[in-house]
Each structure stands twice: as C-alpha cells, then as structure tokens.
C-alpha cells in the first residue's frame, strides 16, 4: 500500500511518544547517571567515569549469568519451536473442538508469572507435589528428586515449566499461520500426489515463515528477560545455578544497593537486548518483503 507522505502525522504519534518517553527515556537517563557515579547517599556522589563498566565487564558472576542465559534461551527455542509446530499441525481446523483447543492452549499464557512458579512448586515438591512424589516413588534416580537441592533438577524443573508455559504461544502463532494458507494450495498438492512431508516442507513451512519469525523473536526476547518464574520457583538457586541476568541484576540493585555497578550492568544488558532486537527487526522486515514479491 502506497502511503501518504505527511509530517503532520507526527501529531498523531506524539501522545505515544510522550508517554513512552516518560517511562523509557527519563529512567534510562537516570540509569546512565547512576552508572557514572559512586553514590554514598542522597546528594553525595562522586563521578567515577567508566569504572563500573570495567568492573562489570570483568565480573565473573555476570559472565556466568550471561552464559546460563544463552543456554537457557537456546534450549527454549530448540524445544518450543518444533513442539509448537507439531501441536499446531495436530489441532482441529474448525468447529467447537477448534475453539476449545484454542482456549485450552491460551490458559497458561494468562496466569500471572509468579503464580506459574507457585503452580510448579506445588506440582514438583517432593513432599506434596504430584510430580515430585510420583518420580521418587518410581525409585529411578540415585538421589531423590528435589528441585531446590541439585542444579540439574532445578534446571529440569525450570525447563519443564518454561515449556509448559510458553509452547502454547508458539502453537497459537503457527496455528494462525496455517489457517492463512488457502485451500487451493492443498488441492494442488493432492493432484500432484505430494506426500504429507512434502506438503509440510514446500507449503506449510514456507507459509509459516512470517509467524515463525515472530515466534522466535518473542520467545528469544522474553526468555532473555525472564524473572518472575525462576524467582518464584528457585530464587536463583541452588547456589547460583539458575541465576539468570534479570535475577542477578535485581539481586545487585535491590539486595545489595550497589547502584553504580547495577546501573552499568543494566546498560550492558540493555545493549545486548537492543542488538538482538535490531537483528530480528531486520529479519522481520525482510520476511515481509520477500512475500510481497513472490
């Protein structure tokens, strides 16, 4: 669609600009301000330049948290995207069963994030949880299952929770993409005698490319920013084994009141996110273009 060129359109964008600037730019400037000073108390601060940035960039705990974050977000994508596609393919196409499936799928998405943590604590605890008691009664593990005791168990629980919570989003997106494929494509494939695998590779997957990009974008970003669920489930432990970037940042900022380092960390964190955001945005734009040409 050809757009009208008119700079007066800025007037329509202005309210959004003001409200988002109030909640984004002013706070961000405050963070920059903190990151360059050593603050002892109100009105008692010393300019320290880039010292906090140097300290944070060489902070081993930050490197560990970043590493864990990449592993976590990577695993999230590896598990949730294929699973979501499979669910979307298996879902009924019309009628009451389609509505019922959609509603069932959407329910985990509308549960407050720390309640998700609570649900999984109750579900996996070794004394009262169905999963915890169940797996321990099978007697398969050398050490009884307890997500607060061992890093491996904490990770398994966390991944199970994450997959349980967010795979429905991927499935819903893929389902929307599948519904947008015209029936004629399938009829043509039938006439050609294409196998269902061929239909998937040459019709469904290419047509889902747009929604899949959005799914990957949302899942990567949101798992990168994850806070409430691990906070409620493990509190970052045992040890530091599930301390992701947000959890470490909040610990640093509100637990120890290290404003300077926390602010420097915030900015580094924000820049990493911004970088990925930019890459994904470019991909999104180009995906749209490719479809228009074809």
């Amino acid at each position, binding site marked *: 669609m050809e757009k009208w060129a008119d700079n007066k*359109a800025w007037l329509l964008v202005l309210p959004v600009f003001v*409200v988002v600037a109030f909640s984004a730019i002013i706070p961000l400037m405050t963070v920059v301000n903190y990151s360059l000073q050593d603050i002892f108390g109100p009105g008692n601060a010393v300019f320290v330049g880039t010292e906090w940035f140097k300290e944070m960039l060489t902070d081993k705990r930050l490197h560990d948290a970043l590493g864990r974050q990449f592993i976590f977000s990577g695993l999230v994508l590896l598990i949730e995207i294929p699973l979501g596609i499979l669910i979307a393919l298996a879902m009924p196409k019309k009628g009451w069963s389609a509505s019922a499936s959609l509603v069932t799928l959407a329910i985990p998405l509308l549960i407050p994030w720390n309640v998700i943590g*609570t649900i999984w604590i109750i579900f996996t605890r070794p004394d009262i949880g169905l999963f915890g*008691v169940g797996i321990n009664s099978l007697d398969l593990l050398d050490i009884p299952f307890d997500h607060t005791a061992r890093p491996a168990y904490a990770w398994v629980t966390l991944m199970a929770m994450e997959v349980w919570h967010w795979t429905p989003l991927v499935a819903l997106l893929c389902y929307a993409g599948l519904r947008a494929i015209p029936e004629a494509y399938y009829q043509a494939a039938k006439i050609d005698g294409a196998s269902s695998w061929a239909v998937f590779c040459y019709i469904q997957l290419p047509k889902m490319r747009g*929604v899949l990009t959005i799914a990957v974008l949302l899942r990567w970003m949101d798992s990168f920013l994850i806070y409430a669920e691990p906070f409620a489930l493990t509190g970052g432990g045992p040890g530091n084994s599930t301390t992701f970037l947000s959890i470490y940042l909040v610990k640093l900022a509100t637990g120890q009141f290290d404003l300077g380092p926390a602010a420097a960390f*915030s900015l580094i964190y924000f820049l990493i996110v911004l970088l990925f955001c930019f890459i994904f945005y470019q991909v999104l734009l180009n995906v749209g273009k490719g479809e228009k040409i074809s």
Partner: protein
Amino acid sequence: MKVQKRTFALLFYFLLLALPIYWMLNMSLRSNADILSTFSLYPSHITLENYIKIFTDETWYSGYINAMIYVSMNTIMSLAFALPAAYAFSRYKFLGDGQMFFWLLTNRMAPPAVFLLPYFQLYSTVNLIDTHIAVALAHCLFNVPLAVWILEGFMSGIPKEIDETAFIDGYSFPRFFFTLFIPLIRAGVGVTAFFCFMFSWVELLFARTLTVTEAKPIVATMTRTISATGLDWGLLAANGILTIVPGALVIWFVRNHLAKGFALGRV
C-alpha cells in the same frame, strides 16, 4: 488411522497442560494440615475454607481489586494512546517513522529489571508511589508499543480508499476515525485490549516495586506470603486458582480472534 493418532497425541498434550493446574485446584480445596499429612490424588475432605479466607480477609481480596483497577486503567490508556499512532504508522510516511517504530519495539523488549531502580525514584519524585496510576503508567512501557504494533497490523488490512472516499464525502478526521474507522477494526481493538489486559495482569516486577499497601496487587501479596514463615499451601493454591479465573473469562470472549492477535495482526 493417522488422524486418530494425531488427536490422541493432542489430547495427551492437553492432559499434561491441565495436570499442574488440576494439582493446584486439588490443593486449594484441602486444608493445610491435610495437605502436609496425607498425599492424595484428589481432595477427599473438600473444604472451602481457603476461599472463604480470601473473600473475607481484606489483605487478600483487596489485592484482586487493586490489580483489576490498574489493569483496566492500563488497557484504556494503552488503547487511547495507541489508536491514533497506529493510524499514523499505517497510513503516513513521515520523518523518522521507521526509526520511531523500531524504538517503540525496543521498549517492548527492554528488560523490566533495567528500569526498576529509576522507576522507584521517578515515581517517588512525582509522588505517585503506591497508587494505581503509577503501575498503569509503568505498564504502558511495554503495552503501548505492543498495542501500536498489533493495531498497525489490523489497520493496514483496511484499504486506504475507504479513508479517501470518506474525506471526499466531507467527513472530518475525528468523525471519520470514530464513526467509520474504529468500527471497521473492532476485532483488532478487542484483541489489543485483550493483550494489554493479559500483559498487565501477569506482570510482577513493576507492580511489586511501585506499590506498598494501598495499591498492592494480588501477585505481590503472594510473594510476601512465600517468604513469610509457615507456608500455607492451601491458601496459596486458592489464590493461584483465583488469579486464573479473570484470564480464562477474557479468553472465552475473544477466542475467535485470539490466534490472529497472537500473530500481531500480521497474518
């Protein structure tokens, strides 16, 4: 045969999806002593005492009221701000439109933890700590960009000729926008409202930081209980079940537009 296998797998998945929620429901209908003493797959002595406690104790039920207030405020604010902006993005080319759109997107992706410290200071300075409006405004950070994004998708689906015809017919811009255009994209407005509701309802970090007592939402009340002594699992579970209810109701109303909205109007 193949179709049946698929349906079976899907039903199995839904069973896994429902199991943790069922378990919480089970816990919510039992007393704490019962939960800790016996392990049982279903509540044998059903009791409603957990729910009664929530509905009679103000520290609990006010959490729900507070959350509902700021979530509604945020939804209305996000829509009011985003509608004109989304129209501008879908219809006009203007200086810096691409950059502006990307900047909005980055706010949806910004880590809330980054904004935690300055938010407390900023809202203290303007005397808004512990008010509903503070949380509603803070949630605008990610909801307004999202609303613009979804609405822009829906609006771009409406041919521009409609606008041109209306202007030729002598409609003023506000009259056209409110009487003709918004009714055309009402599905999109509904989906956007749903998403704003959802993301504001599930958010914890801002809601917990910006409230003390007067506007404290239920999710924050629940985290205090977790850290307090002597966990009451039954009460916690009942609270959890009650936080699912509003979301489930909203889902039912928008179920037909849900999938499209999840793709942010870009299908």
